[in-house]
């Protein structure tokens, strides 16, 4: 590869051709401030906080977009550069609410951090400020356009990564507002509630809809039996939210923290992930046998479900009728568990800890009440749980590891990998293979379907039948796959789709930042967790077996249909 020599603040560095000045500065160990820039996603050069001096150039250059060239001499910290950066920041702040004290992103806000770094203590010109209405229409995401700095990172993610295009810059000049068309609420737009825009936003203009208040109230209510379930991906990320390195495995500490917060029972979504494999595995087998609609597509990711409802309603018969593990858990907590524990289901309050903002929307879908009550009462993201643990003053890293409660706390390694793209597929293959062949699967690691790539494929020979599978993550990749399925040129039997890049470990409710690097670390944590589990196949989960014996009967049986399966609704494409 051609290398360029660039001088950054007097130091020579070598960078590959095609690098920007920002890349070169990075290589030289110089941190140029950025706001609108989001690596690989939003490279538009609009905010100009990253300006630098280039020898021979007439004006300051935006480092995030300006290409580096051989022999270039760059200065990143001159009076002119500092002045220009301060002016950019002051202009942004002059039309920004001073709400840091009450803002969710305080302490993790890129604008606040830069204001501090550039020692901005006073804003000379008090500009005209926006007074847009705050959009809290959805159970998932709050949009406060008054805090928006028009960087367009959310627009790029929603358009290019997710191909949803719910957001765009509207109007001109001072009136510019990034949001849905016609200033609609997110609930009226084609938004999937995936929350990838929340991860992308540098400030507090996009945040999750906070439910901690309801959970605190339930915990303080002596008449409520409050149970909690934790999604597979949260154990690989909650540590990060509480100051530990990315990819820390903290399952036991998380259970301990939840007990200290006062939950009556600490259960695991992994239990119903194992159950999902039983139901979905049998659904696949039945479709294969009976010539049903193929490929069967997974249904655990509610952002993905809303996406197909909006954009490919014709393909809905492909989607598994299985509820997601979160919803299966709620339905069982208020029936099976209520019965077993002798508690009136109306007194049971079910909280889920999810890496996902779309799960909040899913829990509020009107059809999710098959127990006679809302299956789920409150959904918290990883970030909100972190907030509660901090508020309670719990020293998370030093907690002893504790175990989940029975019976809804028992799980296998097949369930924990639901947290990473490819995990549902791998877990299903482990079980379907053994159920069909009645013999032990020797190599249970399906490496081909793991990882962060957009589309992964594998072929598995099950008793002479070749099963073709595909796995995809991120909604743009999903769209491409669905277009192929639509045209009939995708010959798969089983397809796994997750709305978020990398799967749930990269979900919209995860710690910020969530970037490629943190995603990869969380993925390794998930597979390490799997390797350390005594049982690694869903059908071997003894509590799941008991559930079928005592309560459900058999997979796809009548009770399963009533409690664990659901249906979908076509939605508008615009």
């Amino acid at each position, binding site marked *: 590869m051609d290398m360029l020599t660039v001088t950054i603040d007097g130091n020579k560095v070598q960078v590959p051709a095609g690098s920007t000045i920002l890349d070169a500065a990075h290589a030289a160990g110089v941190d140029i401030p950025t706001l609108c820039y989001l690596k690989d996603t939003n490279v538009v050069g609009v905010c100009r906080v990253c300006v630098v001096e280039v020898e021979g150039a007439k004006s300051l250059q935006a480092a995030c977009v300006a290409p580096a060239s051989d022999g270039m001499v760059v200065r990143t910290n001159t009076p002119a550069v500092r002045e220009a950066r301060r002016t950019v920041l002051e202009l942004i702040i002059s039309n920004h609410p001073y709400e840091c004290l009450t803002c969710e992103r305080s302490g993790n806000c890129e604008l606040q951090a830069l204001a501090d770094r550039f020692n901005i203590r006073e804003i000379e010109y008090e500009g005209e400020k926006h007074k847009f209405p705050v959009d809290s229409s959805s159970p998932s995401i709050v949009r406060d356009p008054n805090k928006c700095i028009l960087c367009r990172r959310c627009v790029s993610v929603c358009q290019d990564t997710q191909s949803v*295009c719910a957001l765009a810059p*509207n109007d001109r000049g001072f009136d510019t507002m990034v949001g849905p068309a016609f200033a609609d609420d997110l609930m009226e737009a084609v938004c999937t509630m995936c929350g990838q825009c929340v991860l992308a936003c540098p400030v507090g203009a996009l945040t999750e809809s906070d439910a901690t208040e309801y959970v605190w109230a339930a915990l303080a209510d002596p008449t409520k039996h409050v149970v909690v379930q934790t999604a597979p991906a949260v154990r690989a990320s909650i540590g990060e939210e509480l100051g530990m390195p990315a990819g820390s495995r903290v399952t036991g500490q998380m259970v301990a923290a939840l007990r200290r917060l006062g939950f009556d029972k600490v259960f695991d979504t992994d239990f119903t992930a194992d159950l999902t494999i039983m139901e979905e595995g049998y659904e696949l087998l039945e479709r294969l046998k009976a010539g049903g609609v193929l490929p069967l597509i997974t249904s655990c990711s509610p952002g993905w479900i809303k996406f197909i409802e909006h954009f490919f309603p014709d393909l809905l018969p492909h989607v598994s009728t299985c509820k997601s593990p979160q919803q299966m858990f709620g339905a069982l907590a208020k029936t099976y568990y209520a019965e077993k524990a002798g508690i009136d289901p109306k007194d049971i309050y079910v909280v889920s800890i999810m890496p996902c903002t779309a799960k909040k929307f899913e829990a509020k879908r009107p059809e999710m009440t098959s127990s006679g009550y809302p299956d789920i009462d409150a959904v918290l993201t990883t970030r909100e749980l972190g907030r509660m643990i901090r508020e309670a003053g719990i020293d998370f890293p030093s907690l002893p590891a504790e175990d989940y409660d029975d019976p809804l706390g028992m799980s296998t390694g097949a369930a924990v990998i639901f947290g990473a793209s490819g995990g549902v597929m791998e877990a299903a293959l482990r079980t379907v293979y053994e159920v069909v062949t009645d013999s032990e699967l020797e190599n249970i690691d399906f490496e081909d379907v793991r990882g962060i790539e957009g589309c992964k494929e594998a072929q598995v020979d099950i008793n002479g039948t070749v099963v073709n599978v595909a796995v995809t993550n991120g909604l743009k990749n999903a769209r491409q796959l669905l277009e192929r399925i639509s045209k009939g040129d995708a010959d798969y039997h089983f397809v796994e789709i997750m709305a978020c890049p990398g799967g749930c470990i990269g979900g919209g409710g995860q710690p910020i930042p969530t970037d490629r690097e943190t995603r990869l670390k969380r993925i390794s944590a998930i597979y390490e967790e799997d390797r350390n589990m005594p049982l690694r196949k869903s059908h071997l989960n003894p509590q799941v077996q008991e559930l079928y014996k005592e309560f459900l009967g058999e997979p796809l049986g009548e009770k399963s249909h009533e409690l664990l399966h659901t249906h979908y609704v076509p939605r508008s494409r615009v």
Partner: protein
Amino acid sequence: MACETCTCIGEITDEQREKVREIIDYYEGKSGVLIQVLHEAQQVVGYLPREIQVMIAEGLDIPLSEVYSVVTFYALFSLKPKGRNVISVCKGTACYVKGVDAIMEKLGEDLGVKGEDTTDDGRFSVEIVRCMGACGLGPVVRVNEDIYARVKSDQIKVILDKYE
């Protein structure tokens, strides 16, 4: 008040819909045609209400967010129908120098609109034009076909009162 001669605000005729559909059909499948389609549709309907934007988004298979983003970006496109009376304010250099900004401000105050816009009752639309060729007489304001020269802010109300 019942309208006898004009179409009510927000009402689109079936004939207009049909014409817009023809425009969409003509351009469908070609790329980079959004602005052209919006322009032609606006010529047919007079403005670009939500219904028409949705038709265009669906017909061209373009996200509604993109259509709306383009419509609101260009001053040429309007979300509201033209008012019964069109006030053209000259912002050419000469008129600008002679203080047309004060006129705009007064218009905004009296009509409750900001910049180029249409009043909610559909009585007036304000639009900005460049030089009407009467530079010596600035600031120049035209209402429908009537030209007003050397307009002062305190004359605005009297002028507006002439139009229903």
